[in-house]
């Protein structure tokens, strides 16, 4: 891959996905695109990219983008977040909402571990949670929907007891049991697009997404999250992510790492 190829990849990722492909990922990009080139029938990565630059085909462009997104995730990542959610937020919301129905959105769900972790918490508490999980990457959403994980993936963050309770062994893999799979609706969606509907959520989990976004796109995504969140709702970001520089719509909740609520200014604007 030439430096020019990498520049064009950066532009492609930035414009379509708002994703910041940093220069230190050049080697990683080359490594990830190898299998895409083979699958698409190209001799090598250079041949695939030169074809893409000369005759942009949407499906090939997306295959390249999807291979380069950061899909790393695991079960109960940043476990304190899940403890705050299941011990404090969910009981409070269940009591406050009509019929006890709590609406959750895992935004940037990748391969589904976050959404299933939430679903397990809700099912074990017998709470009525409606969980929507979206991601830009079609393969990630397909994997999430299948609920199928390697023994390496299933162990990362899940205790063996929870694994046995909610997953069944399928040869070398572990598959979410039907009850668990049925608790989450996975959809492919781009956080940069205008929402296709006006669903609102009580809690939004958008963790480890902002830091990978182009700085210029963060404000837009945060504003969209603010619009999708009910006024007394909560937003979880990754522990090292800060909205302050990009948006005044949210303020942090003291003593609860990663937890944000709408700022007074955002509430006034809505009123």
């Amino acid at each position, binding site marked *: 891959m030439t430096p020019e190829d990498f520049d064009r990849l950066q532009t492609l990722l930035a414009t379509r996905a708002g994703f910041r492909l940093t220069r230190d990922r050049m080697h990683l990009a080359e490594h990830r695109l190898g299998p895409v080139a083979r699958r698409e029938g190209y001799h090598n990565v250079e041949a695939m990219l030169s074809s893409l630059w000369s005759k942009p085909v949407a499906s090939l462009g997306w295959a390249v983008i999807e291979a380069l997104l950061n899909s790393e995730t*695991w079960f109960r990542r940043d*476990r304190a977040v899940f403890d705050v959610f299941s011990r404090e937020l969910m009981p409070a919301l269940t009591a406050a909402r009509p019929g006890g129905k709590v609406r959750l959105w895992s935004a940037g769900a990748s391969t589904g571990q976050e959404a299933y972790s939430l679903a397990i918490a809700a099912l074990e508490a017998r709470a009525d949670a409606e969980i929507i999980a979206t991601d830009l990457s079609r393969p990630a959403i397909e994997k999430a929907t299948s609920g199928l994980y390697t023994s390496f993936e299933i162990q*990362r963050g899940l205790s*063996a007891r929870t694994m*046995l309770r909610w997953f069944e062994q399928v040869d070398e893999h572990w598959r979410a049991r039907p009850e668990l799979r049925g608790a989450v609706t996975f959809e492919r969606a781009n956080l940069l697009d205008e929402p296709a509907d006006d669903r609102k959520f009580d809690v939004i989990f958008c963790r480890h997404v902002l830091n990978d976004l182009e700085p210029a796109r963060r404000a837009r995504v945060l504003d969209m999250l603010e619009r999708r969140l009910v006024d007394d709702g909560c937003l979880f970001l990754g522990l090292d992510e800060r909205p302050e520089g990009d948006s005044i719509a949210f303020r942090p909740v003291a003593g609860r790492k990663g937890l944000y609520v709408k700022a007074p200014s955002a509430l006034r604007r809505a009123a």
Partner: protein
Amino acid sequence: MDPRTCLIVDDSRIIRKVARRIVEDLGFEVDEAADGAEALTYCMGVMPHVVLLDWQMPVMDGLAFLRRLRDLPNGRTPKVLFCTIETRADRIAEALSAGADDYVMKPFDGEILLSKLAEVGAVQSPS
């Protein structure tokens, strides 16, 4: 605070070495035993905070060790994590009902072990 201790019980010297490196990086002081009988003798002297336990071993296997350990005075205090190539669901359930706190399928890495140790409360970890 006293350093936290971890006993690694495995008949493979190489596995013990790999596991030792991982748990030492997490701040544990490590001792090793090559089978269940050796581990039991060790625990009768001093109880470690954490035991990483292989299943198939000569002399005394992991499950037999675990049952004997849990019958010792203070034998319920160590957090015991099986670390084994045995991956069948019914075997995992058997180990848990015998008193294991958690179960790690080989192969594993530092991330997995860290998350398991955090899950049983043996380390403080944001992850």
